[in-house]
Structure formats: C-alpha cells, structure tokens
C-alpha cells in the first residue's frame, strides 16, 4: 500500500467563535482520516523543554473524515473571457505578442498564446518548442502542422513575435524581431546577437477548434484521466501587449506594431493592452482587451504585474510614473497561490471556544510522520475580554511558507554554520511543486517568488516543525513557547494575528492593555505598521518579543488577505533581488523592500531592530547600567547577578539567532534605556549590511560591537511603553526549567507592570501626549 500522506489548509487564518471555517484536505494512500480539533499550547519538542502540548477540544467536526487525493494547478497564466467563442477562429489568423522569455531552453513546449487543446490536438497556438525556438502550430485532431523559427530565443531579451496564417493559400509565416534597447534586456547592442527570424511555409490543413477550449496566454489546455482538465505547456517569462486578428497581417503592419504604433483595427479580434486599468493604488488580475469584443483575460495563480515592459527605458522606476512602460506580465510555470481544493469539511466553530491558537489535527493510518497534519488557525474572542493579547506574526509565516533553504540555498550552510537537518516533509515539498514556495525561494526559472498565500498546505506552520536549515523551531512553532509561558503563568490573554491588524488597524489592538508579539515579527504592511505606531503612541504597552522586527514591507489586497506580496530589494539581507525597475508592489503601488528604505526603521517603533544573525550557539544577556536605575528596578526585580538567559532551547542562550540593537541614528526614541545586552557572538554572526556602506573585514561577531541583542525599554506618550527583547532566542528560553528561570521572571515583571492599570512605576506621570491621540489602554 502506498505511504499515507495527509496535507491540508483552512480557508481562513483568523476566526471568531461562531464563524464558519472550511478545511481542505488531500490524502494519499487512504480514503479516511481521523480529525480532532485541538488547542495548541506548546510546539518545540526539544528534550530540555516541556515538549509538545495540545488540548483536545470537543466539536462536531471531530471524527472520521472522508478524504481523497486532490490535485493542484500550478503555473501562472491568463484565460480570456470568451463566451461567444470569438476566438475559435478557423480561418486566417494572426497572433502577436511582445515576449521576454526567461527559460526558452527548459526542454518542453511552452505556449505563449493560443486556443489549443494539448490532449486532443485541436486549435492553434504560438509558443516556444522544446528546442527553444518560436513555433506556430495548428491542429485538426489527428495531425498537427507546425512552423518553427530559424534561431533559438535568447533568454531575458525582449522580442516582438507573431505568426500569420493565410487559410486560403495555406501559407504560414513567423515573424520574430528583437526589441532590445539599452535597458530592457540582459544584453546590450554590443553583443553580436541576431534576434531576427522570418520563416514561411505552406501548411497542409487549417486549424479545427473544439467548442470548449479556452484561449490561454502562457499555457494550454490539457487533460488527465484523474484530474480532468488542467493547464500545461506553461510559459516562463514576461509577455507584454498581445493580440489576435482574423486575417494574416502584412509584415509592414507587424513592423508598425513593433515600433509602438496602434495595432490595426481591421481584423482585430482581441488586443490585450496589458497596461490598461492600472491605478495609483495597484493593479488587479484582469488584463483589458481593447479590441471590439472586450475579451478581458483573467490571471490564474497571480501572474506578476507591474513588471517592466518591452519599451521600458530606465528613466522611470515604477508603473505609477509611466504605465505604458510597465506592460510586462511575468509568468512562472511553478507559481502557486491557491491549491483550490474541494472543501473536505465545513465547521461552525463553537460559541464557547476561548481565544487561542487552534489546529484541526488530521491523521491517516498510524498518524506517524506525513500521515499527520495540523491545520492551524487562530481564534479571536467575539469581544475582547483579556488585558493581554498575543499577536501572531502571520505575515512572517506567509513569507517563510514552505521555504526550501536547506535543499535549494547554497549559502545556507555557511549562514547556518552547520549542515541542515532535513525531515521527511522537507523532502516532500522539495519533490512536489504543488506545495508552492515562499518569499525566500526562487522559481525554477530563477526569478524570486513574490506572492505567497495560506490557501495551501504550509508545512512549516505546523506546531512541531523544525526549520531544516537551522534545526530550530521557527516562527509559529517557536511562538508557541510564548503562548505556553502565558498559559503557565496563568495570564488571561487573547490572540490576534497580523491579518486582523492589517484589516482593522489600531482598532484590533486598542482593547488591550498589553500586547506581546512573536519571536519573529519581520513582515508588515503599511497599515500594520501604522496600527502599531498608533497603539503605542496612544498609550498601549507593547512587548516586542522577537528580533528582525518590523523590517520588511509587504502588501495585501483587502478582498484577498490570504495572499501577500513581497518584493525583495535593498541590501544583501534578501533571499533574492527584484529586477531593476520592479521594486514596486503591484498590490498597492508602494515600493517594496525593507522599511529602512522609507525612513521607518524598526527602531522608531520599538527602540531596536535588526543588527545581524547567526546560528552558532546563542549567548546570554549581561545587565547594562540602566537596569540598576532605581526607577527601572522593577524590570529586573528578583533576578540575581548580572547574567540573564544563559540557557535556552534556541541554541543554548536567550540572545541569538537573529538579534536587534538600539540605534539613535535609526530613530530609537532618545529616552530609551538598555536594560541588558548580549555579547561574545562568534564570527558566524554577520552584521546587517546597512551597518556600513562598504562590506569589509570585521563585519562579524568577534570584531563588531553592533552584533548584540539589546533589551530595551522606553515610555511612550499617554502612559504607553515598549519593552523589546532584541532576540529571536528569547522566547525559546522561557520554557527552560519548567518556566522557572530569570528570563521568565523578567518577562513576568514587565507584563505585570504593563497590565497594571495606571501609570508605570518610575514614570513621569505628569507628561501629556503631544500627538493628541485618544488614550486607548485603560
């Protein structure tokens, strides 16, 4: 019998009691699975900690589920809306497009545009054949006639390509001309490359169209006995303006389009102007047809828009400045933003459910290894009741979703300072593109992955997962150590997610006296950042539990919050680099990259942010003089000696992995105090390159004082306050010795003080807010 594998996801990540949530499950090797709702309390199975803890919750969905193998359509493409079959042209035809192939020699056929049934060989198509040459083909079922260009296509070069077919004479002609300028392609004009190709041949028959074949851009219809219809022959590369005519255009007419002229209206069936419909606030998935039939094309798996087009000339760096130069739509054969599986179970959550981190545990067979899935979601209260909220960094989870550092990243071993520790599920996602990638990966064609979503299995959001590259719990599993600490200490708390903060802004945060965030609060949309700022300035008390905080700028659409866009630019601390001219988020029109690029350093919000990272052993903190200030003595009350956190489940110390530091030049509030700092990080720790304009020897741990975790504290207006740990390893130190240790003690001191009504002890209580903001914390 085949190995049992269970994978699943939920349609929502943040819900309230009484809400309806759908679970989508795919199973290999079994038709039934045992499901049980659980509340997650602790994830990390490290033998020096409390181990994995879950609480089984009664609900109507518990029990045996019928499950089946579900298939996933990977690859981005456009589908034209053509209810009247205007594109089922069976006579003369012209197909034309501006293209920028990224992987012409991938070795299988890529369809650029066509109404082609790849299974039954009906229709017509213009594409790239397995030898990397442009090809035009028509099919009538039992036979295909085809015509290929003279020379293989060059990668990353703009071409204008067309195929014309005169049905009366049977003559088919291919038109291929380079439209390379000084900026838009890989090579300049000094490279002696011949881009042109014009080939003509007589076809024996004309195309025959099936009624239900869709007209696709960047793919073609296919069929499989188990899956039914799907799309194959997926294209890797960019396509700019493209069109279809019902006559064979003359070469001069094609020349005119290539030169940027208006396409002729005579015979035009469709012409997709990829630059139409852009707004200052972003670009949608619909590509507008400016032809007579309005056959707009809809993007599937979110083709990347706002990319430079064939006429980009380097002067403008954003689609908002010059939409007509940004007609490039980029396609990837392995893009995936939604598994689109059938719902396996729909559950109306019990009204009695307390706020927390939950999962639907689904087990097939013995429930070992890949036969066990935890579909994680977060439950907020109907109305906030607790004074404390734990804010889960779901944006960061999305960014890291299904990352493949260990298997794909050559630099990961020198970064980690150790060989990766891979588990079965890492191999599973490495073998199957159906899982999609995260924003730390590149597509197989080499471009970075800029869209990620939670409507697909996210194996590294499972509670027991350990990141292969570093052999540590990472993000969600690590954040559960904070939740377990709250549970252990008996605090009443609610749970929030980044999604709530993005959609509701400060209103989601305001009800709470004190908010703790996660070990790795790295990714924030503008609205999330604004909400944090307003919350703290309005008197909220905020504990930044982790490091690498508030670094990266991401964007969501309001109606599809499960998809996040991320463009990597600026500095070396990026997994991939957005191409020149493609730094702006198509979702919002805002520049992507790091918040540093906007003068919104994390320090301006919580006093410290990214200094650097390393994965050799972690270090303890050593108290700094400010901690002995009697006004701040409450923070370290009950802690003996100078050293804090010389233990931990995260590489043996409370300070390490990724560490943040105080920096006045980056906007740390000047009243900030450093309570303790770590030190003695080995040379495996390398400083963030914004710490110096030039790379130089001496960037690393033993040479560079920047590499430290600063535990900082400052008071904000309206009795607000911030405490920031400056270390990812901090959270993993909490559970050591049954949560009885000086890190736990210190955090208790801070939380107790933060939730106590009234001004903080030792604070300047007479100070009034200058921002004029409502005080939101009671």
């Amino acid at each position: 019998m085949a190995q049992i594998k269970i994978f699943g996801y939920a349609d929502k990540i943040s819900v309230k009691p009484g809400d309806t949530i759908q679970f989508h499950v795919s199973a290999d090797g079994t038709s039934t699975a045992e499901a049980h709702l659980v509340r997650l309390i602790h994830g990390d199975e490290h033998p020096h900690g409390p181990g994995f803890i879950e609480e089984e919750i009664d609900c109507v969905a518990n029990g045996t589920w019928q499950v089946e193998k579900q298939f996933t359509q990977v690859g981005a493409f456009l589908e034209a809306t053509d209810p009247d079959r205007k594109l089922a042209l069976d006579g003369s035809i012209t197909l034309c497009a501006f293209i920028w192939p990224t992987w012409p020699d991938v070795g299988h056929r890529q369809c650029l545009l066509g109404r082609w049934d790849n299974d039954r060989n009906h229709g017509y198509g213009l594409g790239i054949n397995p030898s990397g040459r442009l090809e035009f083909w028509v099919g009538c079922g039992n036979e295909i006639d085809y015509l290929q260009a003279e020379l293989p296509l060059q990668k990353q070069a703009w071409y204008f390509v067309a195929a014309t077919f005169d049905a009366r004479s049977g003559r088919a002609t291919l038109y291929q001309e380079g439209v390379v300028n000084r900026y838009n392609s890989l090579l300049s004009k000094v490279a002696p490359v011949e881009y042109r190709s014009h080939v003509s041949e007589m076809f024996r028959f004309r195309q025959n169209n099936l009624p239900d074949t869709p007209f696709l851009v960047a793919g073609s219809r296919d069929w499989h006995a188990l899956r039914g219809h799907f799309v194959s022959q997926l294209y890797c590369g960019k396509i700019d303006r493209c069109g279809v005519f019902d006559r064979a255009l003359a070469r001069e007419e094609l020349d005119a389009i290539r030169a940027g002229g208006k396409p002729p209206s005579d015979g035009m069936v469709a012409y997709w102007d990829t630059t139409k419909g852009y707004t200052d606030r972003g670009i949608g998935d619909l590509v507008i047809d400016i032809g007579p039939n309005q056959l707009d094309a809809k993007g599937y798996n979110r083709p990347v828009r706002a990319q430079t087009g064939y006429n980009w000339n380097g002067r403008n760096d954003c689609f908002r400045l010059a939409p007509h130069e940004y007609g490039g739509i980029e396609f990837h054969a392995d893009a995936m933003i939604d598994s689109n599986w059938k719902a396996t179970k729909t559950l109306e959550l019990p009204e009695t459910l307390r706020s927390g981190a939950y999962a639907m545990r689904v087990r097939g067979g013995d429930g070992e290894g890949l036969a066990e899935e935890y579909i994680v979601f977060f439950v907020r209260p109907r109305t906030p009741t607790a004074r404390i909220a734990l804010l889960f960094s779901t944006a960061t989870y999305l960014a890291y979703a299904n990352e493949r550092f260990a298997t794909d990243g050559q630099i990961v071993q020198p970064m980690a300072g150790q060989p990766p520790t891979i588990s079965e599920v890492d191999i599973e996602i490495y073998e199957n593109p159906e899982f999609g990638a995260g924003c730390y990966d590149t597509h197989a064609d080499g471009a970075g992955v800029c869209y990620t979503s939670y409507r697909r299995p996210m194996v590294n959001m499972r509670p027991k997962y350990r990141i292969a590259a570093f052999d540590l719990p990472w993000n969600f599993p690590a954040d559960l150590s904070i939740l377990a600490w709250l549970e252990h200490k008996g605090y009443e708390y609610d749970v929030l997610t980044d999604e709530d903060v993005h959609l509701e802004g400060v209103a989601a945060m305001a009800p709470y006296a004190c908010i703790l965030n996660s070990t790795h609060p790295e990714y924030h949309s503008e609205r999330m950042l604004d909400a944090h700022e307003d919350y703290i300035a309005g008197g909220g008390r905020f504990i930044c539990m982790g490091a690498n905080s508030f670094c990266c700028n991401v964007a969501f659409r309001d109606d599809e919050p499960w998809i996040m866009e991320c463009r990597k630019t600026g500095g070396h601390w990026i997994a991939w680099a957005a191409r020149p001219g493609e730094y702006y988020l198509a979702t919002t029109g805002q520049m992507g990259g790091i918040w540093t690029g906007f003068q919104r350093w994390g320090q301006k919000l919580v006093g410290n942010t990214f200094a650097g990272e390393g994965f050799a052993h972690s270090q303890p903190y050593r108290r700094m003089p400010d901690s002995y200030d009697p006004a701040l003595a409450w923070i370290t009350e009950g802690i003996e000696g100078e050293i804090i956190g010389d233990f931990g489940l995260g590489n043996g110390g409370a300070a390490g992995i990724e560490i943040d530091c105080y920096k006045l030049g980056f906007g740390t509030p000047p009243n900030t105090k450093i309570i303790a700092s770590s030190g003695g990080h080995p040379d495996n720790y390398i400083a963030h390159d914004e710490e110096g304009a030039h790379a130089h020897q001496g960037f690393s741990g033993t040479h560079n004082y920047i590499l430290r975790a600063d535990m900082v504290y400052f008071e904000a207006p309206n009795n607000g306050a911030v405490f920031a740990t400056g270390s990812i390893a901090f959270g993993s130190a909490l559970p050591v010795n049954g949560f009885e240790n000086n890190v736990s003690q210190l955090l208790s001191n801070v939380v107790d003080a933060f939730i106590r009504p009234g001004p903080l002890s030792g604070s300047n209580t007479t100070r009034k807010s200058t921002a004029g903001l409502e005080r939101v914390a009671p």
Partner: protein
Amino acid sequence: MSIDSGIKWRNPLFVWGGKRDVEELPTIPFRSHKEVWERTRRSTTKLNPVGRLRYYYKWPGHGATMWNRLRYWPTRRRVLRVRGEYNPKTLRAEKTIVDKRPIWWVLGLLALAIAPLFTPGDLQNTLLTAGATFGIYAAISLCWMLIMGTAGVFSLATYAVVGTAAFVTALLAVKFALPWWLLPPIGALVGLVFGGIIALPATRLDGFYYALLTLGLNELCRVYFVTSKEFGSANGGLYGARTYIPEEWSQLGQLLLAYYACFGLMLLALLLYRFVNGRRLGRILRMAPEKREAFAEATGVNFRQARVWVFLVSSAALGFIGGFYTSNFGGVAFSIFNFDTVLLGLAMLVIGGVGRAEGAVVGTLIVVFFDQVLNTWGPARFMIIGLIMLLVVLYLRNGLFGIKAQFRAWRDKKKSERRSTRAEKGGELLPEEATETEDKSVIYQRRHDKMTRDHLKTLVSPEIIEEHRHSLNGQHSEALERLLIYFRTRPQVEKYAIMAVERFEGYRIVALSGHRGVAPRVVEDRIYATPDEACHGVFMRRVQDLLES
C-alpha cells in the same frame, strides 16, 4: 599528519565567559594559501593550442529576409532538414544541414542516370550489362534489407523467393505466351504466397535457427528446380519468355533500355524502402526492443504483427523483382539458387551496413563491380569480395556507412583517454574542455577550487579534527574555520546534509541532489544519536573527500 607542535589557538570569545567557550586549543602552524598559487606559477607543463577547427563552410542565417521552406508535398517533411543556430563560439547565426543524405542520394542517382553517356566504347557492353544487373540486385538487396534491418527477420531465402517467382513466371510465360508486363505482378503473387509460407515460423524461431531453416529452403528450391523436367533441368535454366526489349532495336539501344529499366526498378525499390522504413510502422520496428514494448503497449500497436507485415510486403516485392527478372532476361538460370548467390547477396548487405538503404545500394555496387566488371580476374575476385567482407565484419561495427559514427566515437574515446593521463591538472578544466565551456567563469571557479583544496589539504590534522569534535559551530581556529567555510560554501549537488530519522533520537547523513524534485540520497546506513554526532560525521566525510580529491 603533523606532530603536536605545541602551538595553541586562543579563543577570542573566552573573555565573554560563555559556557562553551574554552580558553585555548592545540592547533597547527600557520600555512599560507599563497604557497599553492606560487607553486602552480612555476609549473613548466607544455601548453598546446586547443580548440576544434571548423574546416567546412556554414551558410549564414537569413536575418531580416524571409526564409521560405519547401516541403515534400503532401507530407510535412521539409526538403532538407536545415537547422538555424548560433555558432557557440562566435554567436554568428548559421545554418546547418542536419541530414545531408538527400543531397548524396540525388547526386548519386543523377550520376547513375547519366553514367551511360560516359562509358568508354570498348567497355560499353560490359558496363551497361553490369549496370542492369546492379539495378536488379540493388532492388533485391533493398527488399532484403527491409526484411533483415526493419523487420529484423534473419531470412536467407531471399533469392529462393526471387528464383521461384522467376521460374514460375518463366514457365507460365513460355506455356501461355504471356506478355512481359504480366510477369512482374504474377511474380509478386508468387512472392506473396512464398513469403506467407515462410513468415509462419519467422515469429516463432530464434534468429539462428530461422537462418538455417531458410538456407535449407533455398537449397530445397535449387534441388527441386534443377531436377524438375518442367523447369528445363537439361538446359541449366528456363528461357523463352518474352522480354520487354524490342528485338529490332540496335544492341546499344537494347542495352540502354535494359539499363534504364533496371535503374527504374531500383528506384521503385527505394521508394518502397522509404515508404515502409520511414513511416510509423518502420519507426516502431526500429525502436530499441525495451522501448518498443512500452510503446506498443501505450499505443496499441502490435509490433509482432508489424514485422509480419513488413516481411510479406517485402516478399511480394521480391516476387515482383523475380517476374521482372524473367521479363528482362527472357528466363532464368538455376544459378540463382546457388549458395554463392546467397553469399554474394549477403556480402552486399554487410559491406554497406545493415539497416540503411544507402548501405544496400553501395554494397551491391561494389560486389557487382567486382563480380561483373572485373570478370577477367577470374575466381580471384571472389577472394577479394570475401576479403572486403571479412575486413568489414572484423573492423567496422556497421558497414561502410557506419564509419563516420565509429570514427567519431573512437576519436572521443582517444581524447578522453589522453585527458585522463594528464592528471597533473588535478580538477582544473583541461584547456581543450575549457574552450568548449559556455560559461568561462566556470573555468576559473574550477581553478580556484583546485587551489583552495590543495591548500586545505595541508591543514587537515588531528588537532583540527579534535577541535571540530569539541566545538561544532562555535568560534574556531583559523585553520578549522577555513576548512569549514570551504565545505559549507560548496554547490548543492552531492552536498552533505543530515536527515532526521526520528527527531532527537536518530539522524543519518544524506547527500543533497541539487536538483528540484529529486530527493537527497542516503550515503551511509549509520544512525547517529544526536545532531551533533551527525554533524561531526559530516565533517569527517568531508575531510575524507577532500583528501581523496
């Protein structure tokens, strides 16, 4: 390995008081990486010019002009298989004729067509007769090639089929005064019946036994026809059929007519060969057996049946040739069943190379030339044919037309042999490989890698290994840090990693594939209890690989 030098590495992190940071550890004396580079610069290896010269002309690409491609109507086959491509060295757009055989065929057939105009007067008779014989035998060879090469049936009864058809048609022609044009179709019928009979055992018997069987059949035919009164046992053959050659024509005219008629017969045989071998049926049969089975299963094509089909078609064609034989010579001699005829026919196939039409035609040309044109040499010419055949079988893998591929394979083998003897480069790309490398930075990468390895090998010592065991990923001495940075920065292909068999319980060492979709490979069975032990295991493997490289 070095002896204990007494040299200590002092840990810069010791002052921070971390629990795992020891004060000092034994290490080795400093060795500069420059030693390796300087040693290499002193190398006196003789350097030769490298790279492959292109000694034949390549047409330029079409650029902006239209390239009108022609097809053989009504197929989608192009008249010449021409591929446009970039010259890998100069980037020039060029055209390469992928398959030059059509050109050679046209030239060769043209030469045969006009050859009679250039025959010297005194040899005209011999040459034209030989030419006619060549036409007929080439046609026979082509059909036989279909049976042997395409259908893969090792039949030696080819001349038995031809002879039988010839004798039957001659008998009928003599008895019923049939016109000449009826003889080939009747022959085809005879061939079909004969073929049908011998096809039955073809699919059941092994190649060798089938060859024996058909050889026996050939002999049986000979004995039957020689002894049978009806077939003119007294005359050495059966003659008297009407031929297509008008008797009132001049001798030259008659010779020319026979020459062109036989030439036409060969063209017909070529067409048949092309039709059977080049279409789907033939393509399936020429696939490798293991592929063929899978294909047959996938498409529902019964390739056993296809073999029989090819066999029957070829047999009918052989019968047709037999009938033509009679209408050409007015009859037929018993010698067609002779064992030497079979052997000569076999020589025609083997010399040219089994499995290709040009092999059959050129092989026939050579044999007929020796047999018919040099007939003044007497029996010596058979010795020569035998010798040629022997040499071909001994030294050539696939006849004369396999020479090119065989030569290339031999040249490549010699090249790699030469390369492997030049071990002093130790991992660097050899100049002749390097010129063929697309990405020139790879050449330097390999050089850098080699230099680095040569230096790192001098750093491996018991002290360093002990240091690693003690501190896997903390702060390290200069020597150990160099080794680790090298190991960790290697490309992903075959790079070691740890696989958690059971978290916190068992780990094993694997090697990454470096290719998406391909799982890591398990490199050893050993299970390590902790990740740290596995990590040191990885280090030891890497050290060993370094020392062995």
